[in-house]
């Protein structure tokens, strides 16, 4: 191993992520000797300035944590307050919220898959350059993204920082006819989504596996969006209210896999080892 030349990879501005960061990798031969991920996204202090605000303002304020996935934040605020106040929502509101969330997933995941990540897999700087050789793929992506945005717009008023979701329900709900009008687009989008899965599965992934602990919501009857238990692949199974007992948040200089995708308030969350607590 001695005599091998050290090589460094330095990316001062990470591209196609939400948030700002830089990456430094030092290689000795084939071996990674050092990795530094630096997040220089400025802190904004949502937890601090939410104090003293009326509960009805929290969903509007928390949306601003991230412009790409505002619904995730505003619905989290809505659920926390409804739980604190013991509010039960109607089955209709529950279904509309699922649809609302699906809209964000469609637009946000399409953006992610086709416009932020696919250029890396196919060797382009961005989706616009990719469109020169893969016009049909990019046009399909834009149409799929637009359908997601159309759902968010119908239920929330606008795509970014929607205004209709509220504690207890919505300020205003669409008419049945407006919802029916979505059907034709959604039938096309279902097929396009299946094509997306097949297309993405055919991309070449590096053969790299790490011993992660994956955490997700789990619901007994359906794909979990707004409710469920917090579970992990290593046996964690808790109520959402117990979250603080099992997770630690740390601002860290330690290079840890971190989700830059939603790094507006950048934290590195790790599951607290139950053995050590």
């Amino acid at each position: 191993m001695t005599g091998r030349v050290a090589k460094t990879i330095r990316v001062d501005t990470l591209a196609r992520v939400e948030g700002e960061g830089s990456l430094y990798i030092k290689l000795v031969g084939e071996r990674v000797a050092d990795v530094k991920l630096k997040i220089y996204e400025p802190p904004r202090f949502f937890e601090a300035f939410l104090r003293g605000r009326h509960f009805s303002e929290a969903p509007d304020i928390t949306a601003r944590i991230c412009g790409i996935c505002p619904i995730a934040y505003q619905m989290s605020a809505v659920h926390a307050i409804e739980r604190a106040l013991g509010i039960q929502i109607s089955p209709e509101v529950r279904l509309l919220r699922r649809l609302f969330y699906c809209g964000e997933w469609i637009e946000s995941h399409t953006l992610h898959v086709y416009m932020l990540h696919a250029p890396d897999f196919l060797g382009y700087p961005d989706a616009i350059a990719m469109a020169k050789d893969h016009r049909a793929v990019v046009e399909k992506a834009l149409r799929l993204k637009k359908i997601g945005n159309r759902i968010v717009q119908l239920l929330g008023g606008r795509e970014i920082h929607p205004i209709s979701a509220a504690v207890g329900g919505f300020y205003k709900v669409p008419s049945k006819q407006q919802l029916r009008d979505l059907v034709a687009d959604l039938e096309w989008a279902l097929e396009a989504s299946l094509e997306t899965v097949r297309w993405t599965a055919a991309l070449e992934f590096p053969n790299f596996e790490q011993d992660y602990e994956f955490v997700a919501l789990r619901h007994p009857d359906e794909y979990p969006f707004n409710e469920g238990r917090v579970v992990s692949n290593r046996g964690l199974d808790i109520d959402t209210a117990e979250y603080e007992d099992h997770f630690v948040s740390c601002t860290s200089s330690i290079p840890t896999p971190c989700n830059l995708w939603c790094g507006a308030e950048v934290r590195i969350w790790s599951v607290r080892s139950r053995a050590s607590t």
Partner: protein
Amino acid sequence: MSSEKHKPRIGVFKFASCDGCQLSLLDAEDELLGVAGAVEISYFPEASSAMLKGPYDIGLVEGSITTHHDAQHIQEVRRQCKTLITIGACATAGGIQALRNWKDVDEFIRIVYATPQFISTLKLSTPIAEHVPVDFELRGCPINKHQLLELITATLAGRKPNVPSYSVCIECKRKANVCIAVARGIPCLGPVTQAGCGALCPSYDRGCYGCYGPMETPNTSSMTAQFRILGQADSQVARAFRSFNAWAWQFRKASEECERT
């Protein structure tokens, strides 16, 4: 290549913000490929790893200034951009993070971050125009993508952009909305807030919360009096003015007057 050279070059720069305003460009699904054909998007890290060097014909700046590094960086961005346009409430008014401006930021750091020593920030969150000259401020939290496209088109054509500075009330009247403040007694900031959203909140049965910031000549004291008539306490009126455009001077003055009474 030679024809590419003559395309106007656009740079998109981010400071403290949520990314939503620059996302508006990618959310222009029907126009994106057309825009990309008419201009060269030279620097837009959220969308591209190309990141070409300046100078740029148009710089779109999102976010407020909250760190020493950013206060220096905006000077460099200004030097690189022939026309500098700020987009969104963070860049034009300091954003929601300007709520720190009335509080102790060191306390904010301590209660939010587990290891405060890694956090470096300024006491104030300030708009771009407090640091460098700005050629046009596009309002909104978030901005309206159609206004953004109009602004880019107008700038490239060398004409004045059609971005009205009148109030949300005008948009409400155009949509034939029944006034929710008059008819239903719901507090609404529409009379003092700049148009651009399409009177969105009143159209969804709720009062405007002012995310497009102050209109050209807002009568905030009359607005405050109206909120009081509708039963709002001064603390509630102060909070209404103190959200996404809290540091815009007209809203700032209005909220501070409510706190004093």
